[in-house]
C-alpha cells in the first residue's frame, strides 16, 4: 500500500514538473508547481515526517505559490512565445536527458549504499522532536538561517522604500 502510494505521488510529482515545463501559459505552469509541492508534501508524509509535510503545504503551497499567482494576476502574463528551437536540442535532447539522468542515479547510488537509504515510514518527525533538534543539535544552522531571512526582509523593505520616493 505504502509502496503504491509512493509510486502514485512520485508520478504526480514528476508529471507536474514536466507539465510545468511544457505549458505555454504562465498560470498553468504555476498550477503545476502547486501539484508538485502537494505531491512532495504527501511523500514526506509517507516517509513519516508529518510536521515537515504540513509545513510544506502551509509555506510553499499556501503562501509562496499564492504570491506567484498574485504576480501573474497583476502582470496579466499571457502565453509564452514559441521560439524556433535549436537543431542540437532536437537531436540530442531526449537521449541526453536519459543519459544525464542515468549518470545522476549512478553517482547517487555509488555514494549512498543500500543500507543508508531511508525506508518508507522510517522517519519519526512529530513537531516536538523537530523543535528539540532545531534548538539543540542544529542551533547554529537555525540561527544563521534566521539571520539570512531577516536580511532578505530588510532588503525587500529597502527596495520598496526606494521605489516610492
Amino acid at each position, binding site marked *: 500500500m505504502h509502496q503504491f502510494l509512493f509510486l502514485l505521488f512520485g508520478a504526480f510529482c514528476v508529471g507536474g514538473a514536466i507539465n510545468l515545463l511544457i505549458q505555454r501559459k504562465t498560470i498553468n505552469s504555476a498550477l503545476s508547481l502547486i501539484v508538485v509541492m502537494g505531491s512532495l508534501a504527501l511523500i514526506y508524509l509517507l516517509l513519516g515526517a508529518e510536521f515537515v509535510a504540513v509545513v510544506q503545504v*502551509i509555506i510553499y*503551497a*499556501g*503562501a509562496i505559490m499564492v504570491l506567484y*499567482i498574485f504576480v501573474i494576476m497583476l502582470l496579466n502574463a499571457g502565453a509564452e512565445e514559441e521560439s524556433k528551437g535549436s537543431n542540437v536540442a532536437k537531436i540530442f535532447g531526449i537521449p541526453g536527458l536519459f543519459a544525464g539522468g542515468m549518470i545522476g542515479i549512478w553517482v547517487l547510488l555509488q555514494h549512498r549504499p543500500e543500507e543508508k537509504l531511508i525506508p518508507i515510514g522510517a522517519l519519526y518527525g512529530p513537531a516536538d522532536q523537530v523543535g528539540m533538534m532545531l534548538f539543540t543539535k542544529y542551533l547554529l544552522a537555525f540561527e544563521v538561517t534566521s539571520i539570512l531571512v531577516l536580511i532578505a526582509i530588510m532588503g525587500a523593505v529597502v527596495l520598496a522604500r526606494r521605489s516610492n520616493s
Partner: protein
Amino acid sequence: MSALTFLIVAVIKIAVTLGVLLTVVAYTVWLERKLVGRMQNRWGPSRVGPFGLLQPLADGIKFLLKEDLTPPYVEKNIYLLAPGLALIMALTSIALVPIGPIIHLFGISTPVQITGVVNAAGQASDINVGILIVLGITSLGVYGIALAGWSSNSKYSLLGSLRASAQMVSYEVSLGLSLVGVLLMSSTLSLSGIVHAQLGNWHGIPQWFLFRGQFVAFFIYMMAAFAETNRIPFDLPEAETELVAGYHTEYSAMKFAMFFMAEYANMVTVACIASVMFLGGWGGPPMPFLPSAIQAFLPLIWFSSKIFFFLFLYIWIRGTLPRFRYDQLMAFGWKFLFPLALANVVVTAFFVAIRA
C-alpha cells in the same frame, strides 16, 4: 476493530458530518437573512413555510434550475475548477474538528470526529498535527478565490480576487500566531488533545483557554478569522458598491451557489476552531441536575451552542459595522494585529516557562 468495521464507521461518520454541515450552512443563510431583517426592522423571509423555514430549500431549487452561463473569453478550465476548489477546501477542514467525546453504539466505540479513533488505551486520539492541517487547508482556500477572479476575464472579478488574496495571506499570519499561545499552554498540536487539556473546572469556572489568559489571542483570532472568511467589516473582495460582486461577479446558478456555500462553510469551520481552541470544544460546566438521557447529549449541545454563538456574532457584526477602507484594512492587519499577536506569544511563553 477490523478493517471493514473501521471503513463502515468512517463512511457513516463522513456522511453524517457532511449532511449536518450542509444543513447548518443552508440554515445559517436563513438565520442571517432573518436576524439582519429584524435588526433592520423588517421581517426577513416569511413566505416559504412557517417562519420562512423552507426558504433554503427554495433557494437550492432556484440555484439548480437557473441557466448556467459561462461568459465568452474566460479561461475555461480554471473558470470551472475554481468554485469546486473553493467548496472542497471549505468542507474538508470539518474532518479534523472533534465534535464530541467517545460514543458507544452497537458495541462499537468511536469519537465523534471523522479523523478520530480510539487508541489501545481506550482514549480518543487523532492526527497529532491536526491544527496545522486546518491552517494548511485554510491557506489553500485562497486559490479558489484567486483563480475565480483571474479566469473570469473581468476587471471587477480581478480586482476582487487581488484584494482577497492579499487580504487572506496577510491575515493568515496573525491567525496562525494567535493560536500559538494556546498551543504553548496545551503542549500539543492535536485538536482532541487541546479539548482534553481544557476539561475540568476551577472553582466552578471551566478551564477554557479563554479564561486562562488567552483573551487577547481570542480577540486577534476573531478579527483575523473575519478577514479570512471575507465577512463584514472585511468584505472588500465582494464590496458590492465598488466591485458589483467581486470575484464571483461572472458566476451564475450552481457555480455561484458553490462560492456562497464555501463562504458559509468557512464561517462554520472558523466557529468550530474558535470553540475548540478557546472555549473548550465539547466540554462545559457539569450539570448534575439534568436527567441522564440529556446528559449523554450534553457535549453535543455544548458544542452546537458555541457554534451558534459564533454564527450569531458574525451576523450581529454584519448588521452593525460598516466596511473598512482597503489601506485601513492592511494597516490594521500588519501594524496592529500582527505585533499584538507576537507580543501575546512572547508573554504566554514567559508565563509557561515560569510555571514549568
